[in-house]
């Protein structure tokens, strides 16, 4: 008898406790709504949302097609993209950067060419929204949008930029990041971006004229920005594919979309048998060693024919969309057109002087070409 009363009471208690738990959850939820209005009301941010000020907000379409509202006069940017960071510094916006993608901070040349880069915080793609708010970030420019939703939830506008085209061929997209920066930061930046675009187009025109002499070679590219091995490459919708096609060459992995690390098997590599190979990024010295140590890779025709070429590393690997893109376009062509009269050292010096106001010595250029630091040490990327 007593036991059944206890069980009945227990059931009642369970229901009461459950109701309490649910109410706790729901009340927290409902309480938050007026709180949003309350806490945000009266602030500049809220006025921008509720009473849009045409002069206070600029709407930018990012590379994923999102229309993003960005306040003008943004002062603190988390630029979690090496490419966009390079361009921002080149366009005189380096002061606005609070932090950048961590690989950028590991490149010793960034701090040499632009000392303020040493003060940048190193962010990963999965940095927390609160960390960005703590740093006072007003805008995020990011390459990998895995955590973008969290930033948006925190009220931070997010601009997605990419080194590949979701549509297919990466063509006009080369200029997209620069255009976006121009839209966000105003007329002066638009002028800088337009001048850079002219430089890139000049380089493309110069190289395109070389295509009269037939060159239909295939090139395999190893992305050494991270130590992901010899199979880490890019596909047909990437920046490197676009650079090669400008010079009348084709990427050996053209048929792939942006590649994953192990998408190319050993047998596939033998089948691809590229005519030449390009190795870029801070890890290229390690990868070069790995290449010559590997029985498979060292027996590829391009390796035996000594047609493995390095890509210089400047503010960033120059094969990325960057201020150094015109240099990369001309340099790539020079490797395959022996008659093309080109001086990489001179071009690189002029480019770095023009965009970053830094005078490279001949030794500096030598080190960049070999992915060494200013002191001639092998570049070690801590990632």
């Amino acid at each position, binding site marked *: 008898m*007593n*036991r059944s009363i*206890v069980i009945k009471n*227990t*059931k009642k*208690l*369970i*229901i009461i*406790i*459950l109701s*309490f*738990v*649910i109410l*706790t*959850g*729901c009340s*927290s*939820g409902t*309480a*938050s*709504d*007026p*709180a*949003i209005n*309350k*806490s*945000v009301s*009266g*602030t500049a*941010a*809220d006025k921008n949302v509720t009473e849009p000020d045409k002069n206070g907000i600029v709407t930018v379409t990012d590379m*994923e097609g999102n229309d993003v509202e960005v306040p003008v006069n943004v002062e603190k940017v988390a630029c979690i993209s090496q490419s966009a960071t390079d361009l921002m510094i080149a366009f005189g916006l380096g002061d606005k950067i609070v932090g950048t993608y961590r690989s950028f901070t590991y490149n010793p040349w960034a701090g040499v060419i632009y000392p303020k880069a040493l003060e940048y915080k190193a*962010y*990963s*793609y*999965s*940095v*927390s*929204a*609160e*960390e960005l*708010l*703590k740093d006072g970030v007003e805008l995020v420019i990011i*390459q*990998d*949008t*895995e*955590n973008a*939703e*969290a930033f948006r*939830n*925190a*009220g931070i506008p997010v601009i997605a930029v990419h*080194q*590949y085209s*979701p549509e297919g061929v990466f063509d006009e997209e080369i200029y997209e990041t620069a255009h976006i920066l121009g839209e966000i930061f105003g007329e002066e930046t638009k002028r800088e971006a337009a001048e850079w675009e002219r430089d890139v187009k000049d380089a493309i025109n110069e190289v395109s004229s070389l295509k009269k002499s037939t060159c239909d070679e295939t090139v395999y590219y190893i992305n050494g920005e991270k130590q992901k091995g010899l199979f880490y490459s890019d596909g047909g919708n990437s920046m490197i594919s676009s650079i090669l096609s400008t010079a009348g060459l084709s990427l050996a992995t053209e048929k792939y*979309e*942006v*590649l*994953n690390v192990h998408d190319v098997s050993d047998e596939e590599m033998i089948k691809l048998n590229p005519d030449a190979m390009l190795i870029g990024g801070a890890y290229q010295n390690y990868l070069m060693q790995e290449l010559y140590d590997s029985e498979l890779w060292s027996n590829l025709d391009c390796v035996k024919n000594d047609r493995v070429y390095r890509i210089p590393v400047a503010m960033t690997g120059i094969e990325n969309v960057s201020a150094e893109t015109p240099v990369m376009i001309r340099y790539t062509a020079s490797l395959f057109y022996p008659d093309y009269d080109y001086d990489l050292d001179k071009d690189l010096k002029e480019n770095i002087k023009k965009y970053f106001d830094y005078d490279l010595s001949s030794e500096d250029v030598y080190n960049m070409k070999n992915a060494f630091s200013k002191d001639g040490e092998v570049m070690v990327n801590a990632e």
Partner: protein
Amino acid sequence: MQNDYYKGLRSYYLTVAICLVVIAALFLISLFTGRYMIEPEEVIAFIENKEIPELSGRIITKLRIPRTIIALFTGASLAVSGAIYQGVFNNRMASPDLLGVSSGASLGACIGILMDLSFEKIVIASFAAGNLTVCITVMIAKLIGKQTEFSLILSGIATGGLMSSCIGLTKYLADDERKLSEITYWLLGSFSSSTMKEAAFISPVLTICFMICLLSVNTIDIISLGKKEAKVSGVNYNMSVLILISCATLMTASCVSVSGVIGWVGLTVPNLVRLVFGNMHRKVLMLSMLLGIVFMMLTDMLARTLSPDEIPLSVITGIIGTPLFLFSVIGRRKRDKVLQ
């Protein structure tokens, strides 16, 4: 004898009360804990509906409250579903992870991400795949033969392995720069993108499941005795098992769809409760729910406070959960020896 019973009941209610106080305290603490420093006074002012700095208000309302509510529901759901699987299958090793439900629900969600489905559709895909996985697991266990602990676990491991391979396939097919990272990040579990919309979406479903489960505690006790005993007691065995497993799977799938895969909660928490309070499900379910909430809220606070990046939740639940689970297993063995 009756004194012991009431003594046990008293300590149970006392634990429930303590858990409720701890949950309320953790909820408050979670509002001022994180990478961005918010003073407790600001949180109190916020609760009192007073003016606080815009940024603090934004962080509390847009980030911390949604993720804390989702942590609360997720902790409760995973722990309760683990307790139900253990009760229904009469197997202390059963949990959403070991039965392959988490992997199955993950596969559904991965396919949803790959196909660019909306959030609601991802939940449905996750639920369908989770349920399908349970069916496959139970069928394989029956094929293996005797309904021992091991046949079920073995089939769970096999099914989970199959689902993991399929997840691997979705990762292989995913776009490297966008969807692959989204899938990878999501598979490790995180509350970083939690919103009130998500909380509002899952809370009614989970609440109904909690109600059904908590009102079925006596049925679970009977079911755990076996099919024959259940029939003798007048319980519709098949229907009850179906409803309970569906509830547990729906809870797991809902959590997986909003926060990714979070391991160990469903296995560790109910086993700890069973160690202390025995196997009566009215105690096991309620305390699992409350301790699951405590466990998950603490995990979330660590995940978002220890480092500038969000630490994946499964990393923390694994580090904390493993020793706790071993403790519960060793504790149970010692207790069984004493009783013998």
